């Protein structure tokens, strides 16, 4: 079901494509047709919510004169949407949401596209990764949990989703190593429907812990049903003052689960400048701040230059950690 997406924006998008003949090359470029924000996943997920928050902020704060549409292009772990963006080379009206998955897909050999196939416009927000157990579980922090894991790895099943090799999975492998447990002995149970399956499985006692992003566990934490053993942020977060970071627990591990925005390849410097400036303005508006607050996301803005460097660094880091756990051979 979640493959379906809006009929309305689809119709509009086809109108857009009809009217796409000839982009004006003025010194001061501005979008000349409706702007399309591509969420490379179905409605309801992180990319979709990010695109819709941008749509809201760009429109309500009148940062652009053209209408802003969100189109969902699910499939291939983001690849379908990014391929679509690539086909819009040189057109400044198309932006796509992105995350570490664009690096992972490439490193794991699932896709030829990577960060430098596009113009990285900005990094926008981040969530943090956590390891969570049931509230009545005996383990209070990372150390206790991984000690138990060393003794009896065969009965410590860890829920992960939607597929191995993602941020959640990498976090847990890295932590195992840092806490002295054998990453290769970890028993992962893969849940393709992510939190929708992982949380009931944890609460029902079918698995011992889940490795997941914070937002998906927040409601359970507030209700006192789930305990978080540690968080991948560099300092404690406001909403959970009692949850210690991994760093405080003695392991050097800070790991953002970020999402950003990329534009089509082959843009003119004027087009690049327009989006760098506009997004820079957008992240300062009250509409954007409110949207981030509603979604309980942390702002993590980097402009185009900073983001390009960040992506290159992350790519190197990720290659190392994926090689270390044997996912890249």
């Amino acid at each position, binding site marked *: 079901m979640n*493959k*379906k997406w809006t009929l309305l924006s689809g119709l509009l998008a086809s109108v857009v494509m009809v009217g796409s003949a000839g982009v004006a090359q003025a010194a001061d470029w501005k979008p000349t047709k409706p702007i399309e924000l591509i969420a490379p996943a179905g409605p*309801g997920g992180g990319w979709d919510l990010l695109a819709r928050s941008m749509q*809201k902020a760009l429109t309500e704060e009148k940062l652009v004169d053209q209408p802003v549409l969100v189109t969902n292009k*699910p499939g291939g772990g983001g690849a379908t949407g990014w391929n679509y963006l690539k086909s819009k080379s040189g057109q400044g009206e198309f932006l796509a949401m992105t995350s570490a998955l664009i690096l992972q897909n490439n490193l794991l050999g699932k896709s030829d596209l990577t960060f430098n196939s596009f113009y990285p416009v900005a990094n926008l927000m981040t969530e943090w990764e956590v390891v969570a157990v049931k509230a009545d579980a005996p383990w209070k922090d990372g150390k206790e949990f991984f000690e138990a894991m060393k003794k009896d790895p065969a009965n410590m099943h860890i829920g992960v989703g939607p597929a191995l090799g993602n941020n959640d999975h990498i976090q847990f492998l890295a932590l195992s190593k840092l806490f002295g447990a054998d990453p290769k002995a970890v028993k992962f149970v893969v849940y393709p429907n992510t939190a929708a399956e992982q*949380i009931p499985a944890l609460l*029902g006692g079918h698995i011992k812990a889940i490795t997941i992003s914070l937002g998906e566990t927040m409601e*359970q934490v507030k209700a006192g049903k789930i305990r978080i053993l540690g968080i991948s942020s560099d300092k404690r977060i406001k909403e959970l003052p009692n949850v210690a970071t991994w760093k405080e627990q003695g392991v050097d591990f800070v790991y953002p689960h970020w999402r950003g925005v990329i534009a089509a390849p082959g843009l003119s410097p004027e087009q690049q400048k327009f989006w760098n400036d506009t997004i820079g303005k957008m992240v300062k508006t009250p509409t954007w701040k409110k949207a981030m607050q509603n979604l309980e996301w942390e702002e993590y803005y980097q402009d185009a230059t900073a983001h390009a460097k960040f992506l290159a660094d992350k790519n190197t880091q990720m290659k190392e950690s994926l090689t270390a756990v044997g996912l890249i051979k």
Partner: protein
Amino acid sequence: MDTVFHNLMLGFDVALTPVNIMWVFIGGLLGTVIGMLPGLGPATGVAVLIPVTYGMNPTTALITMCAVYYGAMFGGSRASIMINTPGDASAIVTCFDGYPMAKKGKAGEALAISAWASFVGGMAGMVFLIFLTAPVAAMALKFGPAEKFSLMLFALTATITLSEGSILKGFIAMGLGLMMATIGLDGQSGASRFVFVEDLQDGIDFLVIMIGFYAVTEVFKNFSDIDQQYSVDAKSIGSVSMSKEAWRRSFMPWLRGSPLGFLVGVLPGAGGTIATFLSYAVEKSASKKPEEFGHGAVEGLAGPESANNACSCGALVPLLTLGIPGSGTAAVMLGALMMLGVRPGPVLFEQHPEVAWGVIASMLVGNIVLLAINLPLAIPLVQLLKIPQRIMLPLVLGMGFMGTYFLNYSSFDFILVSVSALGGYMLGKLSIPIPPLVLALILGGMTEQSYRNALQISNGSISIFYEKPISLAFLIMAVISLVYALKRHGKIVKV
């Protein structure tokens, strides 16, 4: 108990404001229309509405989205009855007896039966939701991968028992469906399986196959007698009321279908398709005249329709109690609500009772509104039958291809839909039943994932399937349904 009624009154206070009633009506109407179109389901309808909800207060937004959701449940069966083209997977079963009824000239009555059954199922589902949410949610947590696998196995074997003709052909159909379900990226290891062209990487979308097998195949079948009209007289198609006999025969299926649908809806990831197929199997085995099924049996329409709507209420239990979406539509609703700063979940009832109870009360109101929309809507709908086949068939074909394209915006799906339509035509000629194939394709991936998850948890021991009591119970039921089918099959051979 007092608090429930107190809360419900609070809910009606919220739900019965003119603005909210207006949005229930608009949402319900939009949902009905979207549900009727093949390929467009409630998830699409809710997604279209997201920008509209930006300016609303969160309660009104949630009320509107819920109205679209159950509106689509009402609408999904309209197309099944009229043109044998299910609007959504959970409306497949409606084709079995709804379409034969329409062909016999009882389209109006079939539409009325399905609307009333949807209404009863929806109302019963809401009552269960109000009084049973806490215990049922606790029960659903016990439901692990082993239980899920056994339930799926039972649903698959039960479908074979309800297919027409040879049981061997039922198994062939199921095998084909399960094989098709393995195409694509494997969820556990990420390896590609049977992906010969890149477009198949995400697997075969069952909705594409469904449109091919039902809508397009139906066009092929009718092509030979394109000048024939339905054998109906103008008087009978106009009547959209239920006969006394239909009321009497609907009653027990409602009583069985509603609780069954609700329970299946609560289970993580099960959904309306299983609920409707199981309800159909139950009705067929409970009936004194099982031979009427597939030729316009009232029970075969009333049971699954009530199960489907009760199921959509059940699917809201995990959303409201755990904050996790039980279905694709619920996921879209969750996303839209988060943008408005409301997070459904265990603390919603305590922190925002007016939101939670307002929505529940509005769904009770919405069910009545939808019945009021759907009964009169049947009058213009049945007029469709007066359209000559040579105009109707191209329209169905066009709608089928349009629906296909809107699923994934992939032109590759046109090839899939055409191939599956030819396949469906050939299977029809070989009298191999379609339903087991479609159900196996829908459930195949989930069945495999549950099986592997269960084995991961038991560290490779299959004892997990028979040591867990719920799982064992489903396995026994699966065996019983097979024995039943074999017995019935034996009789057919003697005749």
